[in-house]
């Protein structure tokens, strides 16, 4: 039978979900990939036959050692391509992410190595005082000089917002932390770090402070503390 997504997609998704949730269920995968649970199950059966995942009926899905290696490899490729599209070419976040999802499966090792090489080149030039990346950004900002004018401008992702403006029981991904240094330090130490998922679970009698769930435990934040945490809907 034909899979609606490649085996690599599944492996990558299981890997990411396991990082985020600690434990992965078939329904999580279905939701994340936008397919129906029966398709997930038949895909998992194939992966299991190839010794890439451990999976029992109604149980948790975990990656085998071999599967984990493959998943990490795919994700590594994804990140490199994404960074190249997003930060070098200045493609919008969403498109960069989507394209990376496609390209990650057939990109040749040589292209990938060249991309990494290019990052190293930029860093080296930067250390010599030549910031090619920001010149590139400036070049794009001048718009008219873009041949064909077909490149989308880099812009901050529109949904980024302070956690204090967040809705209850919605999952957010932390983008950035700000605020006073001591408070920021405390937040970082307690696991409030960029990339982590948070949810507002409850509020104090007058709307604040917030009760948020992070790293599997419950943390309180005042309004101004929540303002310093920039998030994006996950």
């Amino acid at each position, binding site marked *: 039978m034909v899979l609606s997504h490649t085996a690599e997609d599944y492996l990558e998704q299981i890997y990411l979900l396991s990082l985020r949730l600690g434990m992965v269920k078939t329904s999580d995968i279905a939701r994340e990939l936008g397919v129906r649970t029966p398709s997930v199950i038949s895909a998992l059966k194939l992966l299991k036959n190839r010794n890439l995942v451990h999976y029992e009926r109604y149980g948790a899905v975990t990656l085998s050692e071999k599967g984990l290696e493959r998943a990490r490899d795919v994700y590594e490729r994804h990140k490199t391509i994404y960074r190249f599209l997003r930060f070098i070419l200045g493609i919008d976040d969403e498109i960069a992410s989507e394209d990376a999802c496609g390209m990650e499966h057939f990109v040749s090792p040589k292209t990938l190595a060249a991309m990494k090489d290019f990052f190293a080149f930029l860093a080296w030039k930067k250390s010599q005082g030549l910031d090619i990346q920001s010149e590139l950004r400036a070049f794009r900002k001048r718009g008219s000089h873009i041949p064909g004018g077909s490149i989308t401008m880099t812009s901050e992702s529109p949904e980024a917002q302070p956690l204090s403006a967040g809705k209850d029981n919605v999952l957010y991904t932390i983008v950035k932390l700000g605020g006073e240094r001591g408070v920021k330090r405390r937040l970082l130490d307690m696991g409030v770090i960029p990339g982590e998922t948070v949810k507002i679970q*409850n509020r*104090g009698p007058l709307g604040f402070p917030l*009760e948020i769930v992070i790293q599997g435990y419950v943390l309180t934040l005042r309004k101004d503390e929540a303002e310093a945490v920039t998030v994006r809907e996950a």
Partner: protein
Amino acid sequence: MSRNVTIAVAGNPNSGKTSLFNKLTGSNLKVGNWPGVTVEKKEGTVTRGERTFTFVDLPGTYGLSARSIDERIAMDFLTSGSPDAVIVVMDSANFNRNFYLFTLIMEMGLKVIPVLNMSDMATKRGITLHTDRLSAIFGIPFLKTIASKGKGMSGLWRVLDNIENVGLPTHRPVYQAPIETAVARLMEAFPNEAKSRFHALAILDQSLVIPGNEELQGMVAELGAEIEEQLDGELDELIAEKRYAFVYSIAKECVQRKLSTEQKAAVTDRIDRFVTNRYLGGPLFLLAMWVMFFLVFKVGNPFADLIDAGFGALSAMIPGHGLVTSFIQNGLISGVGAILVFVPNIFILFFLIAVMEDSGYLSRAAFVADRVMHALGLHGKSFIPMLLGFGCNIPAIMAVRTLENRKDRVLTAMAIPYMSCSARLPVYLLFAGIFFPRSEATVVFGLYLLGIIIAVIVARVLRRAFFTKAVSPLVMELPAYHVPSLKMATRSATLRTGFFIRKAGTFILGAVIAVWLLASLPAGVPYASAQSLIGHIGSFVAPVFHPAGFGSWQATVALIFGFLAKEVVVGTFGALYGGQAAMTHALAHSFTTLSAASFLVMTLVYIPCVATIAIIRREIGSRWAALSVAISLSTGYLLAVVVFQVGHLLGLG
């Protein structure tokens, strides 16, 4: 290794560190303060065969930066207290955040004994920790314990007895290349400051700032800017992210979660559906506060009265009439009585606080109260101490220990004396009864309200004056509920009560004896009469109170005696005017309605009592105690003068 071994005990708050420490040390405990700061330090010694272990309980922390007092103490002790090993107590059900602290301590290059505590809670929540895998990865023993039930302690002792055979951890986080390079360069150039990878990283992300070393600061600024440019991020975030990534990678291999997780964890959620509910949380909180107040004072006070009466009876049993008898009665016995009378309240209070803390309610109470308290310039956790102030300022000020942040502790302790304690009520009732017979309740209520207003103003002004940049965050964990240990609560209450008796006792006794001396000398004069030293002082100081409308020497002497305890003001008037009936008559003549009002304001505001000063001194330091005395005396005096003078101008006199 030598025969004396020092072991530090570190861990997150709510990790069961205290139970583990108690189980390790038994009753051989020394409670004091860390040098220079009033943060509680607990130390216990245990002798096993040839060897004596000294266990030092570090403050519970989430990280180790120089930005909070507790963390600074822990970091300093780990850096320069040269412990032979560090037991890191971790809450098994909260692996990531707890393991992060373990990672920090490990990076200090110290010998660590990781203890995964509360493993029963973890099991209930469907979490399995593979200690064998952890041990294999790090090359050191990982232990599982349930300290509250004493389980796993023998295993811990086995490791402690063979501590010389425990090596250093063999696995550690690796950071991005530019950070690793910077760490290496710092450790090479500044081996005294960047003593370990941890120190180098802390210096780099500026959670540890070493003042005065400009060369180092210059290098840090340069390296930091370079890294942030290369890695396109902020250093503190980059380092924390990597550390957590390290923790995740360990958790992935060694922590297993079962499907049942959600159902079991729900017990806490279900309780919180009520306890921290937006609408029910407030009323439930007030109910809890009422119950606590009731238990501390309504249940505690009969015992306090019993102690009081007991000492009174004891005093009456002393035969004779001379100076010696008087010294024993009014100096020694009433001095010791003045200390012990607080014991019931303090004991019950700290028992309840331990129960609330242990069960997990204390942080919820702070969560519910914070919005209002924060608006007043205080912290959610200030509510309980402030409330207790209405009963008695002594246990109230001792309760500021529940506040994490020193600034909040100081501000709350400085504000509490204006909360009108129950000892002030007899004075209000006496004067209101004589001078405001028809509006007694209004006057008393007005005084309580005035006290609250002054407390809030004092807290705000002091915050402005001393802690301008102070932020005391409410970044607070709401731990899972669990059944509190009554044994531990009793132990905590006993320790705190003992601490009060030892530390505040001498001061209180000294003050009582000093007042006795003033009232009894020169030899032969009637106690506290106009001829005694205190009478002379009264006559000498009295004119000062003339602008406030109560310039009689008796009023001044009564106020001086009021230092011992406010209700003594009433007794002193009684003694000076010769009995209850005569006193009422004399007061009605020597005070006007207006001067009575100003006297009441003075009584409310000036130094609550000598025991309060003693405890402020103990909890936040002598200078704050002196400042508290100065503020309360001057504010009380000024307000009394204002009341009298403005009243006079308005023709109320």
